[in-house]
């Protein structure tokens, strides 16, 4: 904190032209079914981790597409890989594979954090 006792905040405006798309490209490339997600939220509704914590797969999906990786990194380990989300997904997306790809992508890709 500086001499004023407060500081400037970064703008929350999301600039679509500067979004880092490496992670979403990596996931879709390795799990093409993820591209068909309609964000219905069934995965989140059935998620055991979401019942007890702030974890929310639907929100992770949005954040990946907007290049907002900081919260994903904090949240992703809450998934227990139980696979209930896969059972209810109307598009048959392999969400468990998506979670694994997110984890791998965050550690192997050079993304803006």
């Amino acid at each position: 904190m500086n001499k004023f006792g407060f500081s400037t905040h970064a703008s929350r405006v999301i600039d679509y032209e500067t979004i880092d798309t490496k992670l979403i490209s990596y996931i879709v490339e390795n799990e093409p079914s993820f591209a068909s997600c309609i964000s219905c939220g069934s995965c989140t509704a059935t998620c055991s981790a979401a019942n007890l914590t702030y974890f929310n797969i639907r929100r992770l999906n949005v954040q990946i597409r907007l290049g907002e990786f900081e919260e994903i990194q904090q949240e992703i380990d809450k998934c227990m890989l139980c696979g209930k989300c896969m059972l209810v997904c109307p598009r048959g997306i392999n969400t468990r594979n998506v979670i694994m790809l997110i984890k791998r992508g965050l550690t192997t890709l050079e993304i803006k954090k």
Partner: protein
Amino acid sequence: MILIMKTITKKQSWNSYQKEIANDNLYYARSCIRQNFFPASEHMFLHILQKELGKNVFDDPNHTTCTGIGYHADVVLFDTIQTVIARHFALMTEAGLEHMAISCVTSFGLYTEVLHTWEHYPEQLEKIRDFLYKATKKEFNLPKSIAHTSDVIYSLRDEIAQKAQHTLINKHTGKPLRAVEHIGCHYAKMFPSKGVGGAEFPQVLAGMIESWGGEVVDYPERRHCCGFGFRNYLVQANRGYSMSNSKKKFESMEVYKPDFILTNCPGCSMFMDKWQYTIAEIDGKTYDSYGKGIPVLTYEELTGLVLGYNPWDLGLQMHQVQSESLLDKMGISYDPHLKYTDKHGNQLPKPVSPLHLTQT
């Protein structure tokens, strides 16, 4: 073709928001904070109307704060502020006047809100009449019209243009000066029909700039709040929220290279001026090409410059961002040695120069 039609529609859409603006026989309602931060502005409003234009304006020493800052900070009740405003109406009635000119945008918003409340809830008006009578033995008539003082200057802009000594034309390039106009949120965002041009296209400052030869910059965050926000700045730790709003505006306007910012609200004038210093100290960033900042003027100060008043009499040296770059562009001569002197010519202490915001 469609694009051209859209532009015309946008430019003219403010015409549907017009209001009656009385510009003579006015009861003047001062602001609390303007007298401290921009001390010459209110004096100049009175001087210009009374001496230059021969209008009757009553500056009442019994007028007090409207308590708006306390109201918006949740420490003053609505009944209380209504009674305070009712007392101001009583003072206006006692002075034999029927029109109010209000210097502060916060006050203007509150006077409007109170009148609107009384129009829709007459029993509330009767209750406040009773409160005021019990407290002060005063009675009042409702004003026939209320106007913000920028409305008054707006209504007189062509008269002022005829007396202009300087125009908003860059003397070096011959092109119009590029002005950012910033309207206080409480001017028209709460009650759009009470502001000239409504909430989306307020014309009050743009009209002055265009009448005096300047060009208005239309930038993406033009209608964004300056961040004043009362509770945002009253608590020190929260001031980052306030400053970040101004920062967002500065970043948005920077690419258009404005020559100055014109405001009609006490808080906006103060923060858009002083946050430039704070941002420069924290981030080392200024929003002009020369590290001097973008000068921020009140509409009275701009009117004074157009009418040929001495910039030091207008109090421009009291601003955080100094205005010499603008004065040079307008071709206004000034004596730098008299910048920090009192009315008798005695030298006053000079402010310390900040690290990043260059003072001319």
